[in-house]
């Protein structure tokens, strides 16, 4: 799997992401500066990592969505290539309209860093084939603006088309407002685009890939992607 991690000014989880990709795929990802206009040739997966691109000023992800590299990301997605935005990366994908909706301020209004439980809604996507549908994993969140919001119509479509991939639940996979860490509509933690090749998610699977620091529940995502490309090859 050839992964490219896009680095914006203010990105700060790009090292965490690169570490997880390296650890699970055994291959060093390319780090791509936001000012570039092209992705490295042969890129399979583009990752927009977490952080505070442009200081999160104006709206999270709003300024980064217009970065020069985003045109290449758009083209990659249009051609069916995989794109994954985590946390700030998710916010950027929404602002760039590669994903519907927007991430509002957490309902608590505070930044929150804690482990959450995520229910994997389906396993038949390249991002989740390392998991079983209905499986619950534990991964951390670290954000102030992760409260997913979209018009009623959009939410209805996302649900109907099975494009909600991750949801905040309790440890048993049950939905409960207490576990909806940021107040997201329908406890949505991650969504797909129509073609199911662009994913945005708020939590950080890249921070749970080693037992020594947390746990390994996040590995499945990366392992699934590796398997996906191995099969495709």
């Amino acid at each position: 799997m050839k992964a490219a991690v896009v680095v914006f000014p203010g990105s700060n989880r790009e090292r965490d992401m690169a570490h997880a990709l390296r650890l699970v795929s055994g291959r060093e990802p390319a780090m791509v500066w936001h000012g570039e206009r092209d992705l490295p040739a042969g890129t399979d997966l583009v990752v927009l990592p977490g952080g505070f691109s442009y200081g999160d000023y104006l709206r999270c992800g709003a300024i980064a969505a217009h970065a020069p590299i985003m045109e290449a990301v758009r083209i990659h997605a249009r051609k069916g290539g995989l794109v994954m935005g985590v946390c700030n990366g998710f916010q950027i994908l929404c602002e760039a309209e590669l994903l519907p909706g927007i991430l509002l301020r957490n309902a608590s209004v505070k930044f929150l860093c804690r482990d959450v439980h995520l229910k994997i809604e389906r396993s038949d996507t390249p991002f989740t084939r390392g998991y079983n549908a209905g499986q619950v994993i534990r991964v951390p969140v670290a954000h102030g603006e992760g409260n997913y919001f979209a018009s009623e119509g959009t939410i209805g479509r996302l649900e109907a088309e099975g494009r909600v991939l991750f949801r905040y639940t309790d440890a048993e996979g049950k939905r409960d407002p207490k576990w909806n860490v940021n107040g997201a509509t329908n406890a949505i933690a991650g969504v797909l685009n129509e073609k199911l090749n662009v994913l945005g998610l708020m939590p950080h699977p890249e921070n749970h890939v080693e037992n020594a620091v947390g746990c390994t529940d996040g590995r499945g995502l990366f392992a699934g992607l590796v398997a996906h490309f191995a099969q495709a090859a």
Partner: protein
Amino acid sequence: MKARVTVTLKNGVLDPQGKAIEGALKSLGVAGIASVRQGKVFDIELEGGDAARAETTLREAAEKLLANTVIENFRVEMTPAGAPAEPAAS
């Protein structure tokens, strides 16, 4: 030339910050507040003196960047010449 772009949340869009402020005002003992919604203003200085062109520029800026029209509305106002750059210290 100076202008102000005001960006506010559309009706129906959740405003956690506004809600929190509402609650905080109540517990601070400020009485009589029914609801609060928070928005943004951008005070912009423009080069050149063509007001019509400036307005076009600003609408472009707002549409492209300053507002996310999925959830926000915006309004552009040119500041009359001689008006203070910021509200008087209140």
